[in-house]
């Protein structure tokens, strides 16, 4: 049974990718998936060799054929996104791709070409296969791309006989996050002990509770504010989330990043590396990560 662990945080910059990268060293028979398609960074630690590259086709955008346009104004009246200028040029950044103008233009003068919104890749890394993507700049449909690469990760894991997918998730609680957590075996929530870290984690936990997913919490840079660390742990326990452990603040994470390595490769003897190993041990023995992949409803976020 293939299990999928999704690493999220709510707030950005709490250490999701650095910790996912370190987990990659510890997992056996693991596939990596970078679901932060909007600002993907995991490849900077993994040096993936791309084996297969595919276009990601997103939605369509409207384009007016000037020669056929009678400037009747119907499209401008219909468009709810203010995407059509007075001289009948469509702003591709504002166009929502609803196609209402396309269908209802009396002259049939509007085309609706499908857009390439990004690319996705299957790669090899020193830790096993990796599925990742790059959403085009200023594009929509990030949720659709996340769903696609999670699906492709599952297919590839089946082919390669991997039994664990490690998915580095996006920050926030919007469409790419919703697309990242549905159907996950469990979430690891990486929190920093700050007022914003706690606030944002509460929102992502609330979201995850809708999906009935188990949540496991680890606190990064815990020693920056131990009182806040305790508050976060209390909150986690209250919502039925398992505590995995605490990682100290350590500039070695940045040094490792600069070296293109994870913390276990770069500084295996450091306190931070030891903390990550302890967290991993707790993680793999957690009831929610049982080898049968059976969803333990007693473990889900309440």
């Amino acid at each position, binding site marked *: 049974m293939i299990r999928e662990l999704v690493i999220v945080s709510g707030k*950005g910059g709490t250490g999701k990718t650095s910790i996912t990268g370190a987990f990659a060293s510890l997992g056996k028979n693991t596939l990596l998936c970078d679901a932060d398609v909007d600002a993907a960074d995991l490849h*900077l630690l993994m040096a993936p060799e791309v084996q297969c590259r595919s276009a990601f086709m997103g939605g369509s955008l409207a384009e007016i054929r000037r020669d056929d346009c009678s400037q009747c104004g119907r499209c401008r009246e219909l468009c709810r996104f203010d995407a059509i200028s007075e001289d009948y040029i469509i702003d591709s950044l504002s166009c929502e791709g609803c196609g209402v103008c396309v269908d209802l233009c009396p002259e049939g003068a509007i085309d609706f070409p499908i857009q390439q919104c990004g690319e996705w890749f299957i790669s090899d890394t020193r830790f096993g296969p990796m599925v990742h993507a790059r*959403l085009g700049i200023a594009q929509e449909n990030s949720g659709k791309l996340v769903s696609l690469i999670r699906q492709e990760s599952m297919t590839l894991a089946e082919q390669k006989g991997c039994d664990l997918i490690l998915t580095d998730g996006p*920050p926030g609680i919007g469409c790419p996050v*919703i697309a990242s957590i549905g159907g996950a075996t469990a979430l690891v929530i990486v929190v920093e002990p700050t007022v914003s870290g706690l606030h944002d984690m509460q929102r992502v936990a609330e979201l995850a509770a809708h999906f009935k997913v188990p949540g496991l919490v680890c606190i990064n840079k815990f020693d920056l504010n131990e009182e806040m660390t305790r508050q976060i742990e209390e909150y986690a326990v209250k919502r039925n989330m398992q505590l995995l452990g605490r990682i100290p603040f350590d500039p070695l994470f940045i040094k490792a990043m600069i070296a293109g390595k994870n913390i276990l490769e770069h500084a295996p003897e450091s306190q931070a590396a030891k903390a990550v190993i302890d967290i991993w041990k707790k993680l793999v023995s957690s009831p929610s990560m049982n080898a049968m992949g059976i969803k333990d409803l007693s473990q889900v976020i309440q």
Partner: protein
Amino acid sequence: MKQGTGKMIISIASGKGGTGKTTVATNMALSLGADVTLLDCDVEEPNAHLFLHPTITAQTPVSTFIPEIDEELCTGCKKCAEICRFSALAVVGQKVLIFPELCHSCEGCMEVCEDGAISPGQRDLGVLESGNAGPVNFFSGRLRVGEAMSPPLIRKVRTKENESRTTIIDAPPGTSCPVIAAMKGADFVLMVTEPTPFGLHDLRLAVEAVKVLGIPSGLVINRSDMGDDSVRTYAASEGLEVLMEIPFDRKIAEAYSQGITIVEKFPEWAEKFRSLYHRIEEVAGAKETAE
């Protein structure tokens, strides 16, 4: 720049999360004091209120159009489902099913319904909070947990821009549609990054996004002594001016963790944030003159 007023709209963005957007936005707002509006457009995870401690005077629910079907009038003609590109409507037998969370509010279904069976309904997007933090006018969007689409709420928050006040926008991380919604139409994009490989990689993406919009921009390097020189080298090659550097200071990090801003903890920083703002005015002004 708003014609003749000299009041700017500055959007603070980064690509990578957790680099210090909210820190720069709140500290700049507090340093400028009077005639400043701060808009927290990171509606998925709004944080500015945790540092400004505003008095909230109004919480306005924000919603978006979804279709509502009058089954008495519906003939099951399927035209609504045919025009919907987002599969938010389906007709099963004679009955129209609506999937509200998939609706993008284009109103195409209502337009093509010949039986008058569709009327405007609402999907809750979240709330718009309004208030004051001392002299700073404060507005913040808070996306409903479970809502996938943030841009309509971001656009709603941005209706609070006011020509007679300097507007500082705290943008969400990333480079896709929510960030574009928080940057479009701004006079200047101030990017905040950290000098690390992740910071650099995501800064490049953010710079590309700003180029698409054609807005002048500049850079703040946060925790500027914790990393390497690659961000500075990149900024120089792009002609992106480094407008401020904030070195790592454990005291700043600890204050942040408790919701205390830099200027509260170290008042001497207020002058630096005011200089940052004046430099932005010069850079944006120069760009405008050049055009």
